[in-house]
């Protein structure tokens, strides 16, 4: 029986395994050195905040794996021998495979800052990171201030987490506004205000200079590069993005760049070896997508596609329209299609913001044809299925605005804002 071995029990590896099982009777082994069972990394924050316990973040009951004949192996893989199709583990065990799926995920970025390897300096990626955080910052007596470095999705989650335990947070963001490399300025600035309204000490245009140390090798402060100001703290969170976790792969014959290089079929240069999820890098980018997509959904979709290939139905990774979502403190965010921080050539933005400063939308469209390209929505839930359809049908923005009600996904009885949006749109474009 063919043995499929998967390194990594995250969403991509687990999705591949589940679908291979659905399609075939192959022997499947999933390896991880992080946790015995698959858990939802995206829920890490809720464990620290006390919304859930670790147990609740596991999407499948522990009995699921045995029932579906998916073997789980706990251990760190240290080498891949592609010639003999064998993996080596830290404890010198070996494991033979017929096909190998690399789904090793990411690691937190460190950019060579002075002091980045001190104690009490953490990233937020793994379960181990969370356990460390719990030890360093159990409450605001032990941890009297924390500095979070890096204004992205994980940074703001870490700030919210610490805030939930009433630990004062200084949030260093290199850009002019929070996440404004991705978000148009109207949205980014609204989020700046929201972050501050929660009492977060948000420092824009601020780079980390260095992290200072006490006598025991613990971080005790952060120096801001621009101003030289020192902020004393008991915890430094480095959340300046992630990059593929491929140290293991680098010493093998498998080609890598920033990630493991794959073609559209998620195949590496070595036969029978594949890579999916955060650690994979497309040789040629797909549409507007980045060659490395470090999001939950793409990991899942790669797993779905690769399972077909492995089970004899060779299938390219061919994602549909882009979508994503996040939550910034109390403001939910969803996006469908492409909205860039500044409109791409030939495109323009329509922006609407509610007076309460908690809701807004931005639509990117082709100026000449009025074709709708994408929407960012804050504080209003929208229907994935409807936008997916409108994008496929290449609807005009006029049409989208007029039919926006159809896409509303807020709970029943919620106040709706479509009329206000239509009015704003008509005013801006002098429509009847």
């Amino acid at each position, binding site marked *: 029986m063919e043995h499929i071995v998967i390194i990594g029990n995250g*969403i991509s590896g687990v999705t591949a395994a589940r*679908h291979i099982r*659905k399609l075939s009777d192959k022997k499947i082994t999933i390896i991880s050195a992080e946790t015995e069972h698959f858990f*939802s990394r*995206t*829920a890490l924050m*809720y*464990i620290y*905040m*006390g*919304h*859930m*316990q*670790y*147990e*609740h*973040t596991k*999407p499948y*009951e522990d009995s699921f794996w045995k029932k579906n004949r998916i073997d789980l192996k706990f251990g760190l893989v240290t080498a891949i021998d592609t010639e003999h199709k064998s993996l080596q583990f830290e404890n010198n065990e070996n494991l033979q495979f017929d096909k190998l799926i690399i789904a090793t995920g990411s690691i937190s970025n460190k950019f060579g800052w002075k002091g980045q390897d001190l104690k009490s300096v953490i990233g937020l990626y793994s379960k181990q990171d969370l356990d460390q955080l*719990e030890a360093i910052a*159990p*409450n605001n007596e032990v941890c009297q201030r924390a500095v979070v470095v890096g204004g992205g999705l994980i940074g703001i989650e870490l700030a919210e987490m610490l805030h*939930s*335990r*009433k630990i004062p947070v200084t949030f260093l963001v290199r850009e002019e506004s929070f996440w404004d490399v991705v978000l148009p300025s109207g949205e980014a600035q609204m989020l700046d205000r929201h972050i501050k309204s*929660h009492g977060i000490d948000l420092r824009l245009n601020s780079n980390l200079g260095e992290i200072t140390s006490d006598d025991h090798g613990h971080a005790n402060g952060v120096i801001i590069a621009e101003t030289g100001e020192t902020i004393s703290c008991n915890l430094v969170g480095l959340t300046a993005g992630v990059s593929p976790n491929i140290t293991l792969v680098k010493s093998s014959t498998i080609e890598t760049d920033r990630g493991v290089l794959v073609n559209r079929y998620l195949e590496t240069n070595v036969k029978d070896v594949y890579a999916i999820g955060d650690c994979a890098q497309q040789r040629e980018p797909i549409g507007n997508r980045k060659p490395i997509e470090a999001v*939950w*959904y793409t990991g*899942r*979709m790669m797993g*779905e*596609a690769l399972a*077909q290939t492995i089970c004899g139905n060779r*299938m*390219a*990774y*061919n*994602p*549909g*329209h882009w*979508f994503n*979502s*996040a*939550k910034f*403190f*109390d403001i*939910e965010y*969803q996006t469908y299609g492409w909205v860039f921080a500044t409109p791409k050539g030939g495109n323009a933005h329509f922006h609407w913001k509610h007076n309460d400063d908690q809701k807004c939308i931005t639509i990117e469209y082709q100026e000449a044809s009025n074709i709708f390209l994408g929407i960012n929505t804050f504080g209003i*839930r929208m*229907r*994935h*299925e409807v936008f*997916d359809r409108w994008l*496929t049908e290449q609807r005009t923005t006029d049409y989208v605005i007029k039919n926006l009600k159809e896409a509303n*996904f*807020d*709970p*029943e*009885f*919620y106040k709706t804002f479509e009329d206000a949006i239509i009015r704003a749109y008509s005013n801006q474009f002098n429509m009847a």
Partner: protein
Amino acid sequence: MSTKINSSMSLAKPDSQTLSKTQKIAVALGVVGLFIMALALFNVDFPNKIIFLSLSLGLITAGTIMFSNNAYLTKQAGIKNDGVWFKSIASRGLWGWALGIALTLFYVVLYFKAEWLGLAADGGVNGGLVAMFDPLSRLLNGGPASQWFVYGTLYTVAILVFGYKFMLKYRHNRYEQLRTISVMFFQLAFAFLIPEFMARLNSETFSLPYYDLKNIWPLNFYNFDKYRVDSMIEAGDIGLAFLIFGIVSIFVISPILTYKYGKRWYCSWVCGCGGLAETAGDPFRHLSDKSQFAWKVERWVVHSVVVFVTLMTTAVIYSYLGNDSSKYWLTKDVFLLGVAGLLTVVFAWVMIFKRKELAKDAQYGAIGYFVIIMVLIGMHYFSGTKNVFLVDTYFLKSSYGFLIGAIFSGVIGVGFYPIFGNRVWCRFGCPMAAMLGFQQRLFSKFRITTNGGQCISCGNCSTYCEMGIDVRAYAQKGENIVRSSCVGCGICAAVCPRGVLKLENDSMNGRINSNDILLGNDVDLMDLVNQK
């Protein structure tokens, strides 16, 4: 992780979950209010009962309001689950167990030792806690209080004050606010005030049984007892109207509403048990068991209760009907045939049109159906006038009342809030919920729609589902949630951080979908895999 579980067992503050100064004062107020009742319980004879009762209830109310204001109004509107699993009382810690035991003891005394609460022996004068409620009882219904009046008052106060708290907690969510106003209204007006006023109308020549109009059979399993039916018939037009309303609500009103809105119209907008669960019980909703095993137990237990209550009610009515069709058209045999016929029509309809939806459960449905039919036939052949199968029907009824009405809905249902979560009764024991759920699963426009591929499997929805539904298991497959047990509380949709869930009433077509490949992936692949 384990450190967290342990820390909640200690009384010392875990992490920063300490109460603010205002919250401490608020708790103190509430405790003083309860203390006054405790004193009354131990027969302290308060000089002016009205003042002390008002003081007691007033302090409890003021304490809860003060606590809620401080807990929620000092923060921005949004999801307020920070530290839920660190609080001893909300995570089966020492305080949780203490509260659970205290509530359970209260129920045991209430049901079985009401005299300890001060209830008068026949004809005597109330003492203790019950006496403290006498003035209020006189004011409302003209007579002295009973333990049930005490309980009803406390129950109503609990729904009102904790309803207020819940509304602040979800002040960003209109759905939650409206349905909370609704349960507060139905409890205050229908369950509490109207029946008391009705009792006031009773005289020697005119008497209506206690009737909470929003209670529908099988929840008020006693509704068709002989003494009730008799007294409703004797009470003339009004009584007859009540009787007819009782029947119409089962066969017409409830099916229509459930078809249009799902069982939530009752379970989380009207019902008193649901009302308490959603308000006072809200802090415990995450304690429900989500395992597959619990689901299995749930289906067996709750459906057995339905079978039991159906047979019992049939037996009770059967036992007092006559045999002579010339006196009254509804005889024992007509009635039995009617019940059997109705069940057969429902069963046949389900098996012919809805078999697919039920899948494996169809077998159990068939078993249940045959058990009932066999028993009905048995009833016909082996029954005397007062008994069915040689068992006194009122014995049947009183065992049901004891086992289900008292032990299950009270002692376990509420007493165990802090251990098993707030909807144990609704999930495992309530025959009404089971029957509405059956319809909801098969014949209703209600569902929880999943938003394409947006789910990140975080688990908030499942954790906070009080009915123990593993919502995530559906959401992460892009599948709508169409579960008979869903009471439509809307909390899963509220706590979802990615806007994945929406409670909706929409067309029955395509309500139950099942996707292996989710929206967002290759369209061809989706078509290939999802079309089975």
